[in-house]
């Protein structure tokens, strides 16, 4: 079992938990957190290089590094792991955000408990991305959800009790749908007596009848969609993100919301392609609304975190939107968008946390001219904003471009083949979100960073400290890397969308 590299993505966080439990002072806690997340980052970078080497050597299995250990044998539940390019990209993203998140919460109250819950949360995240067994996947998914309650409730700000409860209950509501969907999938996963929870085996068997798919697809898609902030189940997101402490907002918006998109792709669409094809229009409409509505809502908010949370709704909506195009280009874009949004939004939340820690307000009407006072943070904010509105050279541009090209391609194809113009219309509507994004980003930049200083107390503020610089610099480098070398990242995920897999999914 321990000869499989993937298992260490769960083992290291567990060791971190044990280490944290033994820590006696803040220095030790910081050491454990940073060393552990550095180890995870190193592991995922190594995995990435090794994966690319294997692929270059002509490895064609859909999932590599597979391992499976029997857990509840009578119910065919295994601890099955395996990764493809998408999972590796997600693992890399998670470890980077955990690392930067640890730096961002350098001076948190009650650090021991905080990091315990944070690491427990990331155990769930890593476990989710390496699992290919539906049961373990679901278990890790729920492990990732529940620490949020305490993290927001104890260390949050503002209306934290309400937000924490709302977030937890809504996400668990999603997982109620999901649990029913997964159990249903299990009972139709193979011939009688050969049911399985293994993703690949279920896709191979392809034995879920169409009638059941019509029932199970919405269940799983909505289940994961709640976490992906799909309209109308997105309302937990603004409140939750606004109340959460910095590192938690980073992890939650940066990584946890990706669990939703990843799950929609990996479980709902991958296992039930026919229903996905037939029912995509319902969810296209919903996600289309998320994209535009989220952007418009961000325009009228005055709280920095709310602005960013609504912008997350819009961007994550775009991920689901692209996945539902069922088209290679758009899906590649969706994965790029997950990476891009994860890094970018983590950067945003880190910066907002740092600004809030200094000014003690997040209301943009009470701040101004910060560019002169906090030049480092302000420049970082502008870079994050530019990435968000899709400036070429940064990650947002690459992702959104790919998504819209793919969607348009599919929309035109639908239109020309007489399959209706829904995709085309919604692509055009979703494209508008780029402009709206520019509106709210530039509005914030203008009010917050430029113009006269609103509050003279702000004149004495100090710029970023070294740990804050580390945290933001790492994220900015990553955002720029995706923007400058999109081919490399496309390379990582391309194989997943190769013809062989797509015949399994059953689409072009």
């Amino acid at each position, binding site marked *: 079992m321990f000869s499989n590299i993937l298992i260490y993505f769960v083992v290291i966080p567990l060791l971190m938990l044990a280490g944290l439990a033994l820590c006696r002072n803040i220095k030790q806690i910081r050491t454990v957190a940073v060393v552990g997340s550095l180890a995870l980052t190193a592991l995922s970078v190594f995995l990435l290089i090794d994966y690319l080497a294997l692929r270059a050597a002509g490895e064609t299995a859909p999932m590599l590094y597979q391992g499976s250990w029997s857990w*509840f044998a009578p119910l065919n539940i295994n601890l099955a792991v395996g990764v493809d390019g998408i999972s590796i990209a997600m693992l890399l993203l998670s470890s980077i955000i955990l690392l930067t998140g640890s730096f961002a919460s350098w001076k948190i109250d009650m650090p021991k408990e905080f990091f315990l819950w944070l690491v427990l949360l990331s155990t769930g995240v890593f476990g989710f991305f390496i699992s290919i067994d539906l049961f373990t996947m679901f*278990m890790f998914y729920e492990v990732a959800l529940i620490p949020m309650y305490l993290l927001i409730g104890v260390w949050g700000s503002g209306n934290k009790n309400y937000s924490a409860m709302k977030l*937890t209950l809504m996400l*668990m509501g999603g997982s109620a749908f999901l649990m029913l969907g997964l159990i249903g999938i299990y009972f139709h996963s193979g011939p009688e007596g050969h049911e399985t929870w293994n993703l690949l085996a279920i896709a191979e068997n392809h034995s879920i009848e169409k009638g059941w798919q019509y029932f199970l697809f919405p269940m799983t898609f909505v289940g994961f969609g709640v976490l992906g902030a799909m309209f109308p189940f997105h309302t937990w997101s603004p409140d939750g993100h606004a109340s959460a402490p910095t590192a938690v907002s980073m992890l939650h918006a940066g990584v946890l919301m990706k669990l939703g998109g990843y799950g929609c792709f990996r479980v709902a669409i991958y296992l039930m392609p026919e229903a996905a094809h037939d029912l995509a229009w319902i969810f296209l409409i919903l996600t289309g609304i998320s994209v535009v509505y989220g952007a418009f809502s961000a325009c009228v908010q005055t709280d920095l975190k709310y602005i960013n949370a609504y912008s997350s709704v819009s961007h994550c909506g775009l991920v689901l939107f692209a996945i539902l195009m069922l088209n290679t280009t758009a899906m590649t874009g969706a994965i790029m968008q997950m990476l891009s949004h994860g890094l970018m939004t983590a950067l945003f939340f880190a910066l907002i946390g740092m600004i809030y820690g200094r000014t003690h307000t997040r209301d943009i009407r009470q701040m101004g001219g910060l560019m002169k006072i906090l030049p480092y943070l302000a420049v970082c904010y502008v870079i994050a904003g530019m990435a968000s509105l899709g400036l070429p050279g940064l990650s947002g541009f690459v992702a959104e471009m790919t998504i819209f090209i793919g969607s348009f391609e599919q929309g035109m194809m639908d239109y020309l083949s007489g399959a209706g113009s829904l995709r085309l219309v919604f692509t055009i509507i979703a494209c508008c979100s780029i402009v709206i994004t520019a509106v709210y980003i530039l509005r914030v930049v203008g009010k917050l960073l430029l113009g006269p200083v609103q509050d003279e107390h702000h004149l004495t503020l100090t710029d970023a400290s070294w740990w804050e610089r580390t945290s933001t610099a790492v994220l900015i480098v990553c955002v720029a890397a995706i923007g400058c070398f999109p081919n490399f990242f496309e390379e990582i995920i391309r194989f997943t969308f190769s013809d062989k897999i797509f015949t399994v999914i059953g689409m072009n």
Partner: protein
Amino acid sequence: MDYSQFLAMKQEICLLVVFLLVFLNDIFMPKRVQAKIGVITCVLFGVYTLLCFFPQLMPDDAESAFSGMYETSPAIIAIKNILNVGVFIVLIQSLRWSSTDAQVIRRGEFYELLLLTLFGMYLMISARHFLLFIIGLETASLPLAAMVAFDKNRYESREAAVKYILTAVFSSAIFLMGISYVYALTGTLYFDQIADVFNYYGTDAILLSIALAFVIAGMGFKLSLVPFHLWTADVYQGAPTPVTSYLSVISKGSAAFAFLVILWQAFGTVYSQAWEWMLYALIILTITVGNLFAIRQHNLKRFLAFSSVSQAGYIMLGIVSGEAMGLAALMYYVLVYIFSNLAAFGVVGAIENATGKVSRDDYNGLYHTNPRLAFTMMLAMFSLAGIPPFAGFFSKFFIFTSAISAGSVALYVLVFIALINTIISLYYYLLVVKAMFIKPVDDNTVPLMQSSCSERVALWICVAGIIGLGIVSPVYDWLLQICGC
């Protein structure tokens, strides 16, 4: 008569031996030894519990005795073992309470009555004839009323005892009424013969439905299924905490197993005609109403009472499948429920013994004054709510899986309603977590306190169970194997 038949009743006989030893000790031994009666009971019962786990003592197949009135099988022994584990923890938990000044002179009776009720529960589970079943039922209920009234100087305790005995007698009467209808329909009281008659002659649907309604209502009182749950909250609140925990896990667990045996063995052949829909309605009502009432409770014992009402609904989900997998899931659920609920009651009891506080508001900021107790309580709440990686998640998942395995659309709807209810239940379990971890310390908060050694031991066992039972898969595999999957 062939006296070797008694060998089938190994567990009952061992339990009686333990009971007699405790009883004799209480009567005849010198004062110095008598004073140790709690510890002695724990040790004797612990040894007995361990003994029962030895596979050499188990029959390989089902055995029956007394012309089929009594049956035992590996599954039944496992059920009794599960109850034993729970009783063992309850016994440890009660040590501190039973040595308080008010209880010290009559604590012998407490242990004796407790062991007697357990004997009654054994008979309920093993009975294959309604006469033996009724004997077991009465043996299990009547001494419990005395236990509920154990704090006889407290008004609530006496009130609870009266309520309990009245409901117990009333429900027995209803149950007997149902049995008399069944006898009228079939002319026999043996479970298997009842099933045969229904199978062979068909059924008079109306009479059978009435009979079943009475039988199910009678058992519903024991299990506190809605709408027969009205006694639960008052009795749980009034009874001494160890008795409450005994009522909520052991009494409820044994009633669930007995209910399953009756429905499957005697009425299994008329499943879809007669009791399927009654059961569905009961489950939905129980889970939903229990949850909705639990939200409003501030007294933690009342709160746990309503939470255990809704848990009974989840336990019932194991019955609907009608297959061995359902039995295994139900056994596993009860086992996990024993550990989780006893951890919750353990914390409530420890705090009540030390400070007398049972309100949720007294738990505000408990994490800052008593971090370990707060942490244990949190684990219990998460396990009851079904959050991984704690055992409650696995037991809920498996019981839902087993319920769906039959595959009808109605079952999907049923499980869906149950799943929606897990969210409601998560809400009120989180309220307790919120009080302990998020709210600040105030004047009412339980101060830093020392719990006794016995309470800590019991809590450690529960915590080990909550964390270990789910992740360590052999437990569930063993149960499945015993049930013949």
